[in-house]
C-alpha cells in the first residue's frame, strides 16, 4: 500500500511538472525519466549480481524501433512507438538472454558490451538510416489523439511518467516477493540455489528479459524527447553511463534510479554550462566522491535523512 501511495504522489508531481514547468525543464525531466527506466532494468539485473555494460544495445533498439515506425511506415503515434520499442527490446533480450544467462561476472559484462558494439557497427554501416548522423522522428498523436503544437513534450512526459510508475510498481512487486529473494540468493551463492532446487539460469534469464524490455522502453522515451536517433545510443559509453547512474543511486530502492538519473542530468548540464572546459573532470570527481563517501549510493543519504526526521 505504501508503495502504491508513493507512486501516486510521484505520478501527481510529474504531471504537475509536465503541465507547469518551462520547456527546457520538461525536456530534462523526460530524459532523466527515460534513463531512469533503463537503470531500473539494470537494477533488476544487479539484484542477481550481474552488471551489463551493454544496455545501450536495448536502449538503441528501442530508440530505432520507435523512429523507424515514423520513418519507414509513417506511424506517428507515440503510444504505438513506446509499445513497439518495449516489445523489440524484450524480444531481442529473450533471444540473446538464452546465451547470456549462462555468463557471470565480468564475462557477462564484456559479452553484452561486445553485442552492443556489433549493433553499433551495423548501424554505422547503414547508409539508409543515416549512418552516424541518424535521423529525425516525429510523433504527432497519442493513442490516435492529436495534440496541439508545443504540447508534444508535455504529453510525452505524462505518458513517460505513467510508463515509469507502472514499471516501477511492477518491479517493486516482483523484487519484494519470492522472486527478489531468489535473485539475491543467486547473487550470493548460485550453487546453493541450485542445490535447493531452483534454477539460477531461469532467474537470470527473466531478469535479463525485464532489463531488456525496460531499456527498449527507455530508448523510445529518450527518442521521443530528443526527436532524433543516432548510433551513439548503442555505444559503450552510453551503456557505461547507465551503470554509473545505477551505482550513483544504489540498488536498494526502485525510486533510486529515477532520482539518480535526475541528479546525473542536472550535474552534467551544470558542469557543461559553467565549466565547459573541465566538465569531464567535474563529473569524474563527483563520481569518485560518491563512491568514496556514499558507497551504497545516494539513496542511503535519503534513508538517513528519513530516519533522523
Amino acid at each position, binding site marked *: 500500500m505504501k508503495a502504491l501511495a508513493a507512486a501516486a*504522489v510521484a505520478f501527481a508531481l510529474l504531471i504537475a511538472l509536465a503541465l507547469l514547468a518551462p520547456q527546457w525543464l520538461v*525536456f530534462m525531466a523526460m530524459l532523466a525519466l527515460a534513463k531512469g527506466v533503463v537503470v531500473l532494468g539494470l537494477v533488476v539485473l544487479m539484484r542477481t549480481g550481474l552488471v551489463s555494460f551493454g544496455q545501450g544495445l536495448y536502449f538503441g533498439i528501442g530508440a530505432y524501433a520507435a523512429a523507424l515506425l515514423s520513418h519507414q511506415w509513417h506511424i506517428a503515434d507515440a503510444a504505438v512507438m513506446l509499445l513497439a520499442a518495449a516489445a523489440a527490446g524484450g524480444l531481442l533480450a529473450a533471444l540473446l538472454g538464452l546465451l547470456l544467462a549462462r555468463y557471470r561476472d565480468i564475462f557477462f559484462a564484456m559479452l553484452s558490451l561486445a553485442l552492443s558494439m556489433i549493433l553499433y557497427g551495423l548501424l554505422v554501416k547503414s547508409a539508409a538510416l*543515416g549512418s*552516424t*548522423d*541518424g535521423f529525425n522522428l516525429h510523433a504527432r498523436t497519442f493513442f490516435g489523439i492529436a495534440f496541439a503544437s508545443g504540447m508534444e513534450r508535455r504529453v510525452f512526459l505524462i505518458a513517460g511518467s505513467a510508463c515509469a510508475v507502472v514499471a516501477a510498481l511492477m518491479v517493486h512487486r516482483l523484487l519484494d516477493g519470492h522472486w527478489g529473494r531468489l535473485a539475491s540468493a543467486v547473487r550470493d551463492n548460485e550453487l546453493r540455489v541450485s542445490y535447493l532446487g531452483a534454477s539460477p539460469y531461469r532467474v537470470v534469464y527473466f531478469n535479463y528479459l525485464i532489463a531488456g524490455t525496460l531499456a527498449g522502453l527507455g530508448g523510445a522515451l529518450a527518442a521521443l524527447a*530528443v*526527436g532524433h536517433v543516432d548510433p551513439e545510443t548503442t555505444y559503450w559509453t552510453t551503456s557505461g553511463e547507465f551503470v554509473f547512474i545505477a551505482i550513483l543511486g544504489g540498488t536498494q530502492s526502485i525510486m533510486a534510479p529515477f532520482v539518480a538519473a535526475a541528479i546525473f542530468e542536472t550535474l552534467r548540464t551544470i558542469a557543461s*554550462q559553467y565549466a565547459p572546459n573541465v566538465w569531464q573532470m567535474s563529473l569524474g570527481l563527483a563520481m569518485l566522491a560518491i563512491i568514496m563517501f556514499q558507497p551504497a549510493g545516494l539513496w542511503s543519504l535519503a534513508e538517513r535523512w528519513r530516519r533522523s526526521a
Partner: protein
Amino acid sequence: MRMSPSFTLRAAVAAFVMLLTVPASLAQQPIKVGIVTLLSGPAAGPFGVPARNAAELTAEMVNAGTVPAPYTQKGFGGTPIELVIIDEAGGPQKQVAEFRNLAPRVDIVIGYISSGDCLAIAPVAEELKKLTILFDCGTPRIFEDASYKYVFRTGPTGTMDNVSVALYLVERNPNVKSIAGINQNYAWGQDSWADFENAMKTLKPGIEVKTSQMPKLFAGQFGAEITTLLGSGAEVIHSSMWGGDLEGLVLQGAPRGLFEKHKVILSAGEPAINRLSTRIPDGTILGARGPFGPFAPDTELARWLKTNYQDRYQVPPNYASFKIAQAILGVKAAYEKAKGAGSAAPDQDKIIAALENLTFEGPGGTVKMSLGKGHQAVMDAAVGTTKVEGGQLKMVDVVRYPAEKVNPPDGVKSEAWIKTGLKK
C-alpha cells in the same frame, strides 16, 4: 520499499523547487549570441578551437567597429554582441539538451560542426522558434529532407567538396581509369566517398573502383589499409579524412610511397596544412570545403581575418575559422538590413526575412543563400595542388569553380544530381 509517502513528497518538492530556481532567462541588454563548437575531443584541435578563436576575434572587432566594409558599423546595428560559448562534445542527445538550456538564454545560436548534431538540432530550433545558424556541418540532408523557418546554414554543403575535386582530377588526368578510397567509417566519410565515386562515374563512365577502405573513426593507425591501397594498383586515392586520422595517414603513408605511387586527393585537407606543412608530399590535391584559408580571394575582408587571426593566435585561420566569421558577419548583415534606417531593434521574424535569399560578403568571398528556400548557402569551390617552395608549402594550380557548377539547383537532391550528370 520502506519509504513513507510523506518523505517522497518532501524530497520531490525539494527537487522541484531546486530545479525551478535555476535562472531560465536573463534580461537582454547586448545581443546574446550562443556559440556551440567542439572544445574537447579529437575535433577540437582542427575545427572547434580555431572556430571559437575566430568567433571571439570577430565579436570583439565587430563591437569595436574595426571590421572592413561593409561591416564598419559597431555591433549589430549599433548594439554590442556578447558570446555565450558552450562545448559541442557529447553527441546529439546531449546537444539537444544543451540547446534547450541555451535557447532561452540567448537571442541567436550560431554553431555545430557535426552533421549529426545539426540534424538533431534543426527541428528543436524550429520547435523553440529560435534563430539558429549552422556554420560548418556538411550533410546536404538538412535542407533537402526538410524545410525550416528558423534554421539557416551559412556554409556550403559537403556536396561541392567532392564534385569539385572530381572535376579538377578529370581536367588534369583525362585518362584516369581507376580510383580507390580511404575514408573514416562514419556518415561524413561514407557520404564523401559516395559523392566522389558517383561524380567520377558520371564524369568517366566505366571507371574502376579498386578498393574502398573504411577504417574506424579515430583509429589513427592505418598500416593494413595502406598496404591494401599500395597493392590495389589504383591511380588515384581519395580521402575525406580530417584531424588526427588525416595526419596519421600522411605520416604513415608518405614514407611508404603512397603519395608517389598514387595521385592522392584530400578533399577536406586544408586544416592539416597548419599542422603538417611541408610533410604533405608535392602533388597532393587539396580541398578546403570552399574558398577558405589559402584559397580565399584577395579581398580586404580576407586580409582582415588572416592578419588579425595570425597576430593573435600565431597560426593562420583555417576553414572552420573562416566559416564562423562568415556566419557572424552574415547575421550582422541580415540584422542591419532588417533594422533599416529605423532605430528600433528588429524582431526575429524581420531578421529571418532579411537573411532569406540574402547575398553577403564573407572573408571567403560572396555567400548566396540560394538553396533550401533561401536558407542554405552556396559559394564558389576551390581546389589546388601542394608544392613545397623554399621550405614553405604553397598551393599551386588553384582552380575556382563557380557555385552554380558544383552545387545542385534548388529543390534537387545532391545525390540524384550527381548521379544524373551534374547538370545546372
